[in-house]
């Protein structure tokens, strides 16, 4: 039997397969080139980029938790200029779509980063981080409120020649309201979820485990929450939804496709298994073969529910 067709489209962007790396967990790609041929990925989503370089938070920045980890890196990054000059040349040569994750403290900063990346060439899409809970003056305000989420989406969309995917925070009361607001503001796609705000204490020292006190929870611990939110978002919007949150195996990814995600991102799992993305791609292919499906399209939204 022939290999199943793994190709998916996210708006105007075509991916050879639906597995991407999640922002902040795969560096700028180079860090993982030791372990497998990066050109086998669906896309690489790079570490979040801001207008100016950011040094990030004081350590300790990470803490292991049950089936997951907390991080409060504080969006440390080289800034858009150094990204374009020093990191993008390597990524261009990989030969697969590069998705630039962007963030800012103001709408104007988002707009300026978006403009610079659109002009640079070699970036295939933008992922707008309106969700990162780590930085006091960062994205929280945008992603937690439908009006500000819509405002930053419309502003980036207004200057961008590239497809714009908006990454949502799970730290909201109703994800459907934010998803709809972002769609109405012109987003080409959604990705969710970002990390869940959490906390851990070092009881011996009676201190927070993280210097920043709170951090973003990721890893298998958050997968059921992510899956529920992706399911809700898919039913609320008509633009493509990319699912992420705790995906570590092909089985995990299959669940997201069944609830209607058009693609998935793999994040924290890269830390435990640098070849996790590759194993997930192969696992999805094997599942499709076993089910006699000729295309990943047969699986997307294949969830069977009984309505009472």
């Amino acid at each position, binding site marked *: 039997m022939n290999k199943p067709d793994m190709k998916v489209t996210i708006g105007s962007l075509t991916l050879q397969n639906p597995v991407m790396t999640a922002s902040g967990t795969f560096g700028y790609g180079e860090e993982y080139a030791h372990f497998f041929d990066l050109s086998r990925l669906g896309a690489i989503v790079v570490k979040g980029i801001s207008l100016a370089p950011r*040094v990030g938070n004081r350590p300790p920045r990470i803490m292991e938790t049950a089936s997951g980890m907390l991080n409060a*890196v504080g969006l440390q990054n080289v800034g858009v200029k150094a990204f374009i000059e020093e990191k993008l040349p390597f990524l261009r040569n990989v030969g697969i779509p590069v998705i630039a994750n962007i963030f800012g403290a103001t709408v104007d900063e988002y707009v300026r980063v978006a403009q610079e990346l659109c002009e640079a060439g070699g970036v295939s899409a933008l992922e707008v981080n309106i969700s990162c809970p780590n930085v006091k003056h960062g994205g929280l305000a945008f992603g937690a409120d439908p009006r500000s989420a819509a405002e930053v989406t419309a502003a980036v969309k207004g200057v961008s020649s590239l497809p714009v995917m908006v990454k949502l925070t799970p730290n909201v009361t109703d994800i459907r309201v934010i998803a709809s607001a972002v769609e109405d503001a012109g987003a080409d796609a959604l990705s969710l979820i970002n990390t869940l705000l959490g906390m851990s204490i070092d009881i011996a020292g009676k201190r927070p485990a993280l210097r920043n006190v709170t951090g973003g929870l990721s890893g298998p611990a958050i997968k059921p929450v992510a899956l529920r939110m992706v399911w809700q978002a898919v039913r609320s919007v008509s633009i493509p939804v990319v699912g992420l949150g705790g995906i*570590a195996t092909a089985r995990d990814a299959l669940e997201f496709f069944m609830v209607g995600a058009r693609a998935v991102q793999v994040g924290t799992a890269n830390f435990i298994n640098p070849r996790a993305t590759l194993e997930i791609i192969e696992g999805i292919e094997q599942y499709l073969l076993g089910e006699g499906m000729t295309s990943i399209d047969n699986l997307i939204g294949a969830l069977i529910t009984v309505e009472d």
Partner: protein
Amino acid sequence: MREILFDQQVQILSNRFFLPGHCLMVLRAPLSYGSACPGQFIMLILPGRSVPFLPRPFCIYGLAEEPECVRLEILYRVTGEGTDSLSRLHEGDKIGLLGPLGRGFDIDPAAQRVVLVAGGMGIAPLMRLAQAYRFLLRDKEFPIICYLGAAAESHLIGRDRMEALRADLRLSTDDGSTGHRGFITELFAQDLPSYRDSNTMIYACGPLPMLKTLAHCMIGSGLSCQVSLEERMACGVGACLGCVVALSGEAPGIRYGRVCTEGPVFSLSEIDWSVQDE
């Protein structure tokens, strides 16, 4: 780009407590580990996705090349759930191995004297370094002076092995059960002025307060010292930015280096000790 291997099925050759709470694990690593530099580290990954969830970083304590493999020795203290799980593994069990990682110690082939300052488990990377010096400069006679400090005599780890490497040992214990009663940095500071007379390479590893004291001792000595640092890590390859340490520099504001990639070995003067918390 130096090769980094990821193998999910590395065999454990032995794993045993040699002191209460202290273990030595021997792994059957691929042959390419023979070229691992002293001071480089590895990540051990337990299968499964519950606790411990993240890989754990360990420096290489000993390394022996055999015809079909490299025997890698890892020294660890059982301090939490991760190391507790590790200590329960047996000979023949499989474990994930990522490495060799990071920037190791600089070895000077023209060194006339090698000085090691170790606090407790800090002996681990320095043992491998001493081993490498004796092997690389095997045609040369030169002193290795090892300052080794611990809580008590029974915790002076690696003492016999250092003696076998013809190291001149200077000991200290917190309780005075052997050697100098007090901190190892006190012994080292007394001798430091005498190390200016020849080409001396100084290396250290130990708890943060020890390294801070050492940094203070070294000021104005005209000598440099390489230190191996430890931090919580997730990826080990420079992606997660979890393991940063504040670096010193002329420019205003804090600048961070990743212990996993810019380190774990730094020059003592590269680190901004004023912001390091205990």
